[in-house]
């Protein structure tokens, strides 16, 4: 288990964000070590998605500090550079329907990193192989199943060669078999040293992939613990309630 304080990948201090009068994040502070796999749990509206969206500044934060790989993220941050460093995968995959699987993956390196077409396509094929979908490279997204599309979305994000990957409920639209496939990929990523943060509602999935669980409610972090400890001995009543609700399903 990586040491929390030794050269962390992400440091968050007193992070705050509101939509109008509604405070989404209230003084959130935590640290993520290099190569660590964090899963963020919590009820709907607890601020999980907003929190990870602050890391690639799709949602700018109001106050507090985010430092990723030693670099402070604020309004002066060059977004293109930040987003090359921090990749993101969405619940609905958000693949580009007018582009083939290969083009979906090759387009961002070509336009953002100005890679040549051939180099970009080689890179894309490489990552498509990693997620086991290279045989579908010439198809359009609409011809693929949900699980296949999500794997393409992961490959597309990896083509930017980020050091942090954010997953925003990546399995919410998938059947159990596909969930398992995505979990395999995420496990293999961290084997290569990728730092991942994943928001999810699936307990089994969380337990399987997480080094550490962060439990949020009403814009605050209530618990931060290894999965074994969190699922068997939650410290707060709120987490106990949340878990008992989940188990009842």
């Amino acid at each position, binding site marked *: 288990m990586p040491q929390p304080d030794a050269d962390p990948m992400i440091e968050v201090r007193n992070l705050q964000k509101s939509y109008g009068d509604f405070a989404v994040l209230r003084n959130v502070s935590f640290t993520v070590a290099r190569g660590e796999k964090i899963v963020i749990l919590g009820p709907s509206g607890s601020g999980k998605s907003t929190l990870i969206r602050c890391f690639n500044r799709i949602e700018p934060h109001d106050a507090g500090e985010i430092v990723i790989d030693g670099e402070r993220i604020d309004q002066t941050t060059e977004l293109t550079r930040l987003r090359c460093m921090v990749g993101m995968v*969405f619940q609905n995959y958000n693949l*580009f*329907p007018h582009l083939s699987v290969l083009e979906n993956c090759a387009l961002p390196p070509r336009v953002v990193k100005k890679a040549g077409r051939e180099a970009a396509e080689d890179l894309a094929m490489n990552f498509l192989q990693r997620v086991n979908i290279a045989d579908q490279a010439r198809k359009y997204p*609409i011809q693929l199943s949900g699980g296949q599309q999500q794997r393409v979305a992961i490959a597309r994000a990896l083509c930017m060669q980020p050091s942090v990957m954010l997953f925003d409920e990546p399995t919410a639209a998938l059947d159990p078999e596909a969930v398992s496939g995505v979990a395999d990929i995420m496990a293999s990523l961290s084997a290569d040293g990728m730092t991942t943060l994943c928001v999810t509602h699936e307990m089994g999935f969380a337990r399987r992939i997480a080094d550490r669980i962060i439990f949020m409610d009403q814009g605050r972090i209530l618990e931060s613990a290894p999965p074994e400890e969190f699922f068997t001995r939650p410290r707060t009543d709120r987490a106990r309630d949340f878990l008992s609700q989940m188990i009842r399903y």
Partner: protein
Amino acid sequence: MPGAPLVRIFLCVCMLLGLLAAPGARAQAPSFAAGGLTVCTNPTLPPMTFVNGSDSSDLAGVDIDVSRRLGTYWHVPVTFVSMDFVGLFPSLEAGRCGMVISGVVRQPAREVKFDAVPYQPTSLVVVARAGTAPVTSMADLSGKVLAVESGTSYAARIAQENVALAAAGRPAIEIQQYPTEDQVVQQVLIGRAFAFVSQDVELAFRQTQLNGKVSVIFQPDYPEYRNFAIYIRKDARDRAALAGAIAALHDSGQMAPILQRWRLVPGGGAQEGTAKAASGFNWRTFASALVSPAFARAAAITLAMAVLSHMTAIALAIPMAMVMNGRDGLLKSAIRAYVALFRAAPTLLQLLFVWNALPQFLPVFREAWFTPFLAAWISLSINEAAYQVEINRAALQAIDPGQALAGDALGMTRMQVYRHVIFPQALRIALPPTINEFISLIKTTSLASVISLQELLAVTQINVARTFEFTEYYAAALIYYLLIVFFFLWVQKRIERRFAWADRLKATSHAAA
């Protein structure tokens, strides 16, 4: 060459005489003709003003000859601008031309705003199909359909007869207005109208074309229809100069040959039309119209106008649609007002405004560079953009916001997201309504004939007026319109082939989340 010195001396004497005579013969040009005389005319009224041949820029007729004589008299070059009748007086008012001469009668109502100088006596005639019994008064037309040319004063004059008829408890004369003289005549020929109203000189010319298919049934003695007049902007000195010039042409015997040429012996070119059979479709006319340079050129103008206007409209509409999909603000409100205004105002009105009203505010638009083509291009682009904004806005709105989000998260800039992610998808949604708009625009270009653009329908009208073979020329125009539209429908099909990524949507829709 023994005769050469003598000839040279003779020439010198002539030149000397010419120089001496010049101050007397050369009249000072009035202000409206200073530097050149520009004449507005609607060349669909033979024998006064019409196109005598297949070249639509080759004008002929009494009015054209009189204008040229005036130019010679004042020693200024003469330029003709042909346009729809409705556009004549607005153009005169806007200063686009120095005078209007177009078989227009002298009329007190028109003289409120313009000065009129008569140049040719005439009289009003009511004409029906040959064999119709003559009537003895206008009241005898009670309850019957009478066709008149729109933009002329005939309709208003007949309406006065209707007041009298109403007072006597009799049904009114039903007035139908048509944009050109030849269409008016057609209504009688096809039996829709009982009679039409025209001037005697025009009828004399028509008679030769129509092989005596119509005849005069009444000649109402309206004093206000006794003279054709040239119209100019109000100016007492110009009016006196013009009246003097007309009198001088009469006195020097220059008017008589013109009248002889057109009234008594119609021009050679015009005779061609008389040879046609009384009925049936003349395939030779149709075929020669189809391959004539005049039609090809007019079709090219129509096509170029539609393509250029629509491309400009799309270029204007894309950034406007992007603003419309963004946050509220002053710019968005301004675009909303623009869209509302230009969709509400008739396109014809916008064309007339740009061509005739704009030069009154900004004299720079009166200059030669502001051609009818340019004016029509500007008007139609601005008009079309208002519709295109709505199409583009709807297309952009239909794209899932997750697409832009994914583009952002991958590090693309706003412009890269639009170019690589949003526009290609929006194009698929916008294409069918855009092609619809374009096809509609091809036909809207025909409105530009009111500002004298010689597009396809204007050239058709001019040829119909000359020859009266309306079925043949309408058919030729139709072929051109069909060819143009079918070509673009084919282009649409070709482009839509590239949207296979969305067509498979239906087949595998279960795959979508």
